[in-house]
């Protein structure tokens, strides 16, 4: 709900003084609405109007940075309800809750495993983001555990405690790492707000309903604590989805500043499948941070892959450079496989070629990121395009044979391609999974 040029005009001095370089205040207002000029160009605007306009220009969901200079990531700053409308911008931070009642060696062991949770998929590195230390024992134990966590992982941390004295000391110890504090409630917001302010830390605000959350975020921002994250507490998954949807709508559709913050959710499930499904639901439905307990690679890979899917820009499919890629120790007689430059196609073929242990070339034809069948249907993966790509990347001069392997799904182009390129065409398997057996049986 951006202000129109006319709305803005009402806030201007209406003197047409031309100091801003434009002929009239109305013209200036129109430019402001388009974000084409800066409000500072008007020397006579009232402080009140200026504040309204500046606030109006802020992103509807406040961007909040977690972590410090060494390792940080941004959450919030989202602009749409559905990814097809533009894209989801800042991928959900995935974090792990660790309890201080575990022994030092148990904590260390978990952190070692968490640090290892990195996966490469379609050319992107998928990583986890946060470690959250929860206080269950006394302050002395909590502080010991905080030190252990800080020394055992470089990931940004969350300090979770109801004991404000312990939390303050923990914040002092961890301040260089810019920990996220959990959490402000109606009972403690003054004191915890003071800690967040003193150390310049982001803060989670927790209340069950939007009225209470609104009250808390207003109180906190009035004392200068504005890097806030919302949590509506432990509820059923269905209720959480409602809360997350509603808070995104409040921010985007009503420009409700008091609820214009990223949201955090905690999944409290023992079963890894139940935990992953719930986490996946919150990733799809607007949660900026999701905290879980499970640390097994087979669970986390699934969650991170879903995040990668949901946060892919729908206007820009992941693509790689169109090129002739040598895989393994190739020579002039190595086979040449043709695929598209859609990342998923290329990396799927790459994985299977590597698995076959047959040194090969892969030519990724520029299909503007379209997959094999889509590109074929759109005439971006036909005999002409492939021939052009073969020439561009000097395939003829690289190899001493005349054979090209094309995906089984485009067998129909064989004739045209043979004619136009001068190569002999071998129709490969339809599915990449068939490549290893295919390459081994070649010749």
């Amino acid at each position, binding site marked *: 709900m951006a202000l129109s040029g006319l709305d803005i005009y009402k806030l201007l001095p209406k003197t047409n003084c031309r100091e801003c370089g434009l002929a009239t205040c109305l013209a200036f207002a129109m430019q402001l609405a388009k974000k084409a000029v800066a409000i500072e160009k008007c020397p006579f605007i009232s402080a009140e109007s200026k504040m309204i306009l500046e606030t109006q220009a802020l992103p509807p969901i406040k961007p909040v940075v977690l972590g410090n200079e060494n390792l940080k990531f941004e959450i919030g700053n989202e602009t749409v309800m559905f990814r097809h409308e533009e894209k989801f911008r800042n991928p959900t931070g995935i974090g792990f809750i660790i309890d201080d009642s575990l022994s030092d060696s148990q904590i260390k062991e978990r952190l070692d495993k968490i640090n290892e949770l990195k996966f490469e998929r379609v050319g992107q590195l998928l990583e986890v983001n946060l470690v959250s230390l929860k206080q269950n024992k006394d302050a002395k134990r909590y502080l010991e555990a905080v030190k252990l966590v800080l020394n055992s992982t470089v990931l940004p941390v969350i300090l979770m405690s109801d004991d404000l004295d312990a939390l303050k000391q923990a914040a002092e110890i961890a301040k260089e790492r810019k920990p996220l504090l959990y959490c402000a409630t109606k009972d403690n917001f003054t004191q915890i707000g003071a800690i967040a302010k003193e150390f310049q830390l982001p803060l989670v605000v927790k209340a069950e309903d939007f009225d209470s959350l609104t009250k808390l975020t207003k109180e906190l921002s009035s004392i200068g604590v504005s890097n806030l994250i919302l949590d509506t507490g432990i509820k059923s998954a269905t209720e959480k989805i409602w809360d997350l949807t*509603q808070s995104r709508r409040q921010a985007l559709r009503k420009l409700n500043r008091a609820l214009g913050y990223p949201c955090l959710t905690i999944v409290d499930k023992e079963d890894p499948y139940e935990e992953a*499904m719930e986490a996946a639901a919150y990733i799809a439905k607007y949660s900026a941070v999701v905290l879980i307990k499970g640390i097994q690679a087979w669970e986390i890979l*699934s969650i991170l892959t*879903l995040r990668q899917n949901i946060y892919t820009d729908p206007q820009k499919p992941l693509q790689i450079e169109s090129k002739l890629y040598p895989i393994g120790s190739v020579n002039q007689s190595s086979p040449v496989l043709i695929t598209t430059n859609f990342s998923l196609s290329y990396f799927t073929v790459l*994985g299977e070629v590597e698995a076959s242990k047959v040194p090969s070339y892969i030519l990724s034809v520029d299909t503007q990121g379209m997959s094999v069948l889509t590109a074929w249907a759109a005439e971006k993966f036909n005999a002409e395009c492939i021939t052009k790509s073969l020439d561009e990347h000097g395939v003829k001069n690289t190899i001493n044979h005349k054979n090209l392997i094309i995906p089984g799904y485009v067998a129909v182009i064989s004739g045209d391609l043979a004619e136009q390129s001068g190569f002999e065409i071998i129709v490969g398997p339809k599915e990449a999974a068939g490549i290893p057996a295919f390459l081994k049986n070649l010749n």
Partner: protein
Amino acid sequence: METQLVLDKWPGVISTVVIGAKKEESGSRSNIVTIGGQSSLPLLFKEGAIPNKPRVAFEVWDIVPQDWHNELLSAYGEEINDPLGWAQKCVNEFKAEILYVRMQGAHPDFGDRSPEDSAKFISTLLDKVKVPLIITGSGDNTKDNLVMPLVSEAAKNERCIIGSAVQDNYKTIVASVLADGHSIIAESPIDINIAKQLNILISDMGLPLERIVMDPTIGALGYGLEYAYSIMERARLAALSGDKTLASPFICFVGQEAWRAKEAKGSIEQGIMWETITASSFIQSGADLLVMRHPKAIEKVSNFIETLFRG
């Protein structure tokens, strides 16, 4: 101070599709399953009626599956070697409430079973199991056009869902479905315009929109899931805004896609998780029917659906 909630009320409603017919309707099913009928986006119960839950169908074939992951085969034990026994095990042991039968054996590369024998298989299956059926051909258009009319006739009045109609091959199957009292799967290649066009073509042949379910052609987790996810969201928004030609329930063939993923061929937990997350994520974009393979993944997803619908 009260927060004014942003509530969306939609003029449109998704078609209600009933699967299966009991004795009083000249069928022989012991239960029927109803999907669709919602006038809200997925799980937003406060904004409109969501009378029916998403349902999970077990996938079985009319032959012993040849390219299935070993762990997947072993989940069904000995019975996997006898398609009828496999189907019965799904119903009796795993409590399947719907079965999806793929007539893979009719495929020229998978045995080339005759249309008559395929129809006989369905007749026998209808005797052995009493849950509603979803039946599709093998994906070979030419052969499917010979097989599916007989299969459809063999299941006459059982109100199955029969598939798949595609843009350049829908007339034969629509005619059969119309004659034999079934509903149809309209399959489109991750394309909302083709989905809409196909629904119109099918209804122009006289099959009511209430007898169509749409297959948006999903990709597995990590393999293009997001494309179908967004197509489904767009179609659902259009349908709820009043476009009747997109107001069909969605069927998602989760199992066949998830188990093709390289990741699913790692550990068995990874495979089950891959299928589970692929399925559960499509619930968020509006899936009404999920066709799945691993009994454990099906159990996990079914329980998740129950949890979500408890509110």
